[in-house]
């Protein structure tokens, strides 16, 4: 026993022992280097394909074995978990606002994170399209058709789902263009769309399940990749993808969580992982999984051909960036809350 220090108070010592014991349990045997990628819902299949490719690449370059762990969930929920201490090495979320939140609330990522990688840190983009039942019985062609009486629209909850926020902003952008920037009319349009939504699932994947598996609704507003995936999973004879005249360029960004990788000395592999996403090999996988690659030149032609040509606008151009869009539309008391209120 070291008598030079005063003994800690018995209670706090007791607590320390308990906590140390618990933490020991948590550090259950993990051999080799691991990398935790905390991602959002629709990327499950994408990263399932990318992770082994990167592991092989890393092994070839360094001789080290890397095990990549994946966690998927609603983008907002995942960001919250990282803020609360989920030990993510990299985050690959649905929208910049969620990574901004991690940077702002935990300080584990510097605020200028988006400048660290090319293309606004988005190695792939996507857009928002409609998935309808075969034969398009409700004749849905564009955003206006979603407000028709009797059309049930399936879209997730923008409060919890990143994809849902893209859906909402895509509709809003269309409205602004149609009504020449008239916000009041746009708000009416978006409100009418949400009035036709019988369900608001917590995540994009939940909404797709509700539409495809549970047979609810006439149209699913979805990520383009999600629409392709759902129609592939459930049979091409059941659904059709409908492309609206105008949609949004969705840029799901990626970032290294600096505080976490520095804590365990994994910065090098974490950065290599994200850089790998921009390589020809990864870009080809990205296109194969129905995302729009940042470098289309690396993707297989037939993968690119599947993706329709749509006129796209960006969040930065129409909404002045994610921070502004988030505050104006999705914060508590924002426009989304207003249009959700159901009058008595």
């Amino acid at each position, binding site marked *: 026993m070291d008598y030079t220090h005063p003994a800690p108070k018995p209670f706090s010592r007791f607590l320390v022992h308990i906590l140390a014991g618990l933490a020991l349990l948590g550090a259950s045997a993990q051999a080799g280097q691991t990398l935790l990628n905390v991602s959002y819902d629709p990327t499950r299949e994408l990263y399932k394909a990318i992770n082994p490719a990167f592991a092989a690449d890393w092994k070839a370059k360094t001789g080290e074995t890397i095990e990549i762990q994946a966690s998927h969930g609603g983008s907002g929920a995942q960001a919250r978990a990282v803020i609360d201490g989920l030990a993510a090495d990299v985050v690959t979320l649905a929208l910049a606002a969620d990574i901004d939140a991690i940077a702002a609330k935990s300080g584990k990522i510097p605020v200028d994170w988006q400048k660290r990688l090319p293309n606004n840190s988005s190695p792939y983009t996507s857009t928002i399209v409609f998935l309808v039942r075969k034969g398009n019985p409700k004749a849905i062609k564009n955003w206006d058709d979603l407000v028709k009486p009797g059309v049930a629209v399936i879209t997730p909850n923008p*409060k919890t789902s990143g994809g849902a926020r893209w859906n909402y902003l895509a509709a809003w952008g269309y409205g602004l263009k149609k009504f020449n920037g008239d916000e009041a009319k746009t708000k009416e349009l978006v409100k009418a769309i949400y009035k036709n939504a019988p369900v608001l699932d917590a995540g994009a994947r939940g909404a797709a399940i509700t539409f495809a598996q549970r047979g*609810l609704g006439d149209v699913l507003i979805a990520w383009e990749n999600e629409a392709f995936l759902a129609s592939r999973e459930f049979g091409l004879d059941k659904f059709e993808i409908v492309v609206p005249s105008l949609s949004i360029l969705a840029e799901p960004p990626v970032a290294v969580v600096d505080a976490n990788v520095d804590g365990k000395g994994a910065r090098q592999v974490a950065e290599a992982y994200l850089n790998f996403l921009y390589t020809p090999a990864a870009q080809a996988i990205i296109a194969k999984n129905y995302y729009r690659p940042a470098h289309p030149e690396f993707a297989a032609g037939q993968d690119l051909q599947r993706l329709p040509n749509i006129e796209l606008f960006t969040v930065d151009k129409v909404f002045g960036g994610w921070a502004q869009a988030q505050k104006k539309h999705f914060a508590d008391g924002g426009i989304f809350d207003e249009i959700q209120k159901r009058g008595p």
Partner: protein
Amino acid sequence: MSAPSSTRANVWRFRAPSVLPGFALTFGCTLAYLGLIVILPLALLVLRASGLGFFGLYDIAAEPRVAAALRTSFLVSFGAAAIDVVFGLIVAWVLSRYDFPGRRLLDAIVDLPFALPTAVAGISLAALYAPNGWLGAPLADAGIKVAFTRAGILVALIFVGLPFVVRTVQPLIAELEAELEEASATLGASRFQTVRRVLLPLLAPALLTGFALAFARGVAEYGSVIFIAGNLAYVSEIAPLLIVVKLEQYDYAGATGIATIMLAMSFAVLLVINLIQAWSRKRFGYV
């Protein structure tokens, strides 16, 4: 392991004298365990919420979406508990009074909601009542939607609450004294009158307790509901889900606020149950 057990006679004692050993040890362990696992975290929750103040808490509860979720939770739980009381009574009666083939099997299956994980119940109820499910399809043809509506929540809560009613009432039915019924019959009451005037009042405390338990469980339930509810704000969103939603929006104050309101409700229900049992003990001499 100190004071209580070592105090000598003639001094005020924390516990009544007993020759049995181990009070200090077991009582100490119980308190320490409860303190660390239950009380400390819950106290921290209340402490966090107390930062909001009473009015802050009220503001959270009065926020339209929260108010709607609380209303949905309470209303639907109330309805489910009421349905459970009616059918739970019938089931308990049938199980303890009648003998028929398969009775034991039926008796065993009543506990299923205790043993079946809520998430499993949730996905299977959603599959069952979805528009293309075994029950959902015929119901949809009849124009009734269950999955992804309040009716879906009702179905899930009926499921989780049923054993609470049956298991509270069943032992009492078994203990009812035959003389009471016989006396009633002798005095010319019809069977229906006997049941209504004699038996039901005797079972009332147990039914109320069962109702309160089913209600409390219903309000707290999460896993089985979220899969089938549709989670539409203002319509089919339950309070526990809203805690998760608030958490996902980094709204810790809101989440702890709703959690505290629900915690207070849990306490209130436990209190009511204790009162019912005290009242029943006084009036009927049993719980």
